[in-house]
């Protein structure tokens, strides 16, 4: 009897441990961010001042916006490789059309263009049932080709700097409007996806498509919406960046793609679908930008930044899959019986 009780206690202890691990996994991005921030504040010269912090926030606004849509696509269990070229498309369209249409109409056109690419992606994935990796790889090539074809490979710029000045001029003491706009849009989508009935559908579709369908969700529509959102936020992010520097280059999105994919995964969104959220993705983007910035303060070049972010990503992926591997090992075992076996059944 006493043994039984003890083993029951052992089980409870095990469950507590599991819960704790789960919690740790959920909050891991905050822990990583805190570690990076503290290390950089201690060791990087000129890191901890308002000017530099604002710089970090400015640096994250492009990728945080792009990460919104990418996170939703990943929650649905899909992949979108076209975010980089979508971002460039948004930036190029805004700058190319500004002299003809003015800022706001060209921004609208850019957002429509991004959504259109996303809609094509979503339609091909949901209705034609082609793997999202292939579809988005194809549209990435197509959009990139279109951009180079229309711009002839050269950078575009406009002479109107009024909007750029307004976007970069600090408000409320230190925050520029670009950062405020980005953060508020990210938070809006975070609430929409995480806390509304409509948004929770994305998690259901990603977690188990069949169950979602049986529960009465229009799964195809959800998939298409996820891709449209991804195209929209990518184009919007690119457009905002282009508006704040009044110019755009056709190779804008290449480095961004890598940062966004890394950040979303480090932020705890799994590629199997059904988990993750937009806020943690944003924190992960800030973490990576902090890492880059801090390393730059230490005098390290671009190569060290890639190396470091790659190491962080690799460590996170490795840790995650090792935890799953351990879980798989004891899957279906009853810990109390195992404990009894270990204790004395073999004697």
């Amino acid at each position, binding site marked *: 009897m006493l043994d039984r009780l003890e083993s029951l206690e052992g089980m409870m202890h095990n469950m507590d441990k599991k819960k704790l691990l789960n919690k740790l996994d959920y909050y891991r991005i905050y822990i990583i961010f805190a570690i990076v921030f503290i290390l950089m504040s201690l060791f990087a010269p000129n890191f901890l001042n308002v000017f530099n912090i604002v710089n970090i926030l400015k640096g994250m606004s492009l990728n945080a916006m792009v990460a919104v849509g990418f996170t939703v696509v990943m929650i649905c269990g899909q992949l979108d490789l076209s975010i980089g070229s979508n971002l460039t498309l948004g930036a190029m369209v805004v700058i190319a059309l500004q002299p003809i249409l003015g800022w706001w109409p060209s921004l609208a056109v850019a957002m429509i263009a991004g959504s259109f690419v996303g809609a094509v992606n979503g339609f091909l994935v949901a209705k034609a049932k082609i793997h999202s*990796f292939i579809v988005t790889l*194809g549209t990435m*090539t197509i959009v990139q080709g279109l951009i180079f074809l229309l711009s002839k490979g050269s950078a575009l710029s406009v002479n109107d700097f009024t909007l750029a000045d307004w976007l970069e001029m600090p408000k409320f003491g230190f925050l520029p409007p670009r950062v405020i706009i980005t953060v508020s849009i990210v938070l809006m989508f975070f609430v929409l996806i995480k806390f509304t009935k409509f948004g929770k559908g994305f998690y259901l579709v990603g977690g188990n498509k069949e169950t979602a369908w049986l529960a009465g969700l229009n799964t195809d529509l959800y998939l298409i919406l996820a891709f449209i959102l991804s195209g929209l936020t990518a184009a919007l992010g690119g457009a905002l960046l282009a508006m704040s520097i009044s110019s755009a280059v056709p190779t804008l999105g290449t480095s961004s793609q890598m940062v966004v994919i890394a950040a979303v995964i480090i932020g705890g969104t799994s590629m199997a679908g059904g988990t993750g959220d937009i806020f943690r993705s944003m924190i992960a983007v800030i973490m990576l930008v902090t890492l880059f910035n801090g390393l730059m303060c230490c005098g390290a070049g671009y190569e060290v930044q890639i190396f470091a972010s790659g190491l962080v990503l*690799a460590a996170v992926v490795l840790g995650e*899959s090792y935890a799953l591997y351990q879980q798989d090992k004891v899957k279906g075992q009853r810990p109390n019986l195992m404990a009894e076996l270990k204790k004395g059944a073999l004697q």
Partner: protein
Amino acid sequence: METSMQANKEKIDVRKREVGKISSIINKLGVYVLVIALMILGTIISPKFLTASNFMNIIQAVSLLGMVAAGVSFITYSGNFVDMSIPCIMAFSGMIAVDTLRYGIVVSIVCGLLTGSAIGLINGIVVGKLKANPIIWTLSVAFVGNGFMRWFYSGKQIYPDVKGGAAADVFINLSRTDVFGRIPLIVIVMITFMVLGQFVMTKTKFGKQVKLIGSSYEVAKMTGINVNKVVCGAFILSALATSIAGIFLTSLAKTGAFYNGEGYDFNAVTAIVIGGMTLNGGRGDVVGVLGGVLVIGLLSNVMTLIGINTFSQSIVKGIIFIAVVGINARSLRKLGRDDA
């Protein structure tokens, strides 16, 4: 009443059979329909197309891609999508080979191959044993490797003729050697890889095990196949083929640099998937992959002959890529062989 029902039944059956016929033709011939169509198109467009030297050019242009695709197809076959660290493996093995040239050509090539295989081994262990997502893991390996190379060589290129001495000439001429008079060595190596790959994939125990793992992981595990080992083997095989291509590429470019091999990852996926392999694994063969590689070569050759510029070429390539995969997936679904 009964007869009409029977007639109806037969009608349905006939239609089903016809649909099946078209789909199975598409399924069997697959990518070679596209190869033949492109050849006909090329012949109509230009008299320069149907010459031996032009064909040799086409094959030579895609021979490195062919080597990579033949290896990577094993990863796709085992249901692990693709190795995104292909460019990293190619660049790294090339750079190590150049760096060790001073110890002689044999040591240099062996070191290059070992470097590539080591990356493949790491990928194989993490994806095979720990079951990490193959795309994400190999992508992070690519970041780490790329960053490491830039950091280690401080972003510089290295040149075999500066590093190597006597062995440098051999290294540089490696990709410029012709065998039997006029056939380049790289073409011979590519064709050897294709033949070997097809043999291993369809005729050996290892190939059958990979197929079973790709078709159904759980079943393969229950059958008693050492799943970890086989997946690991597929990754090492792929990395070995990739690093051989990487050494040839470095020799062709006469420079070892971190950006060597850029784009080979996506091109290899394109070739493999156009060639009739599905990303779910367990379907297709190396003969199809060869067709996919040929399509890529023919496509850019024909478009260049027509006079389409590079940017438009990439648009056309993207459209054809999606369309071919879509048609392929559709025909599989019609035949009832698609599980996705």
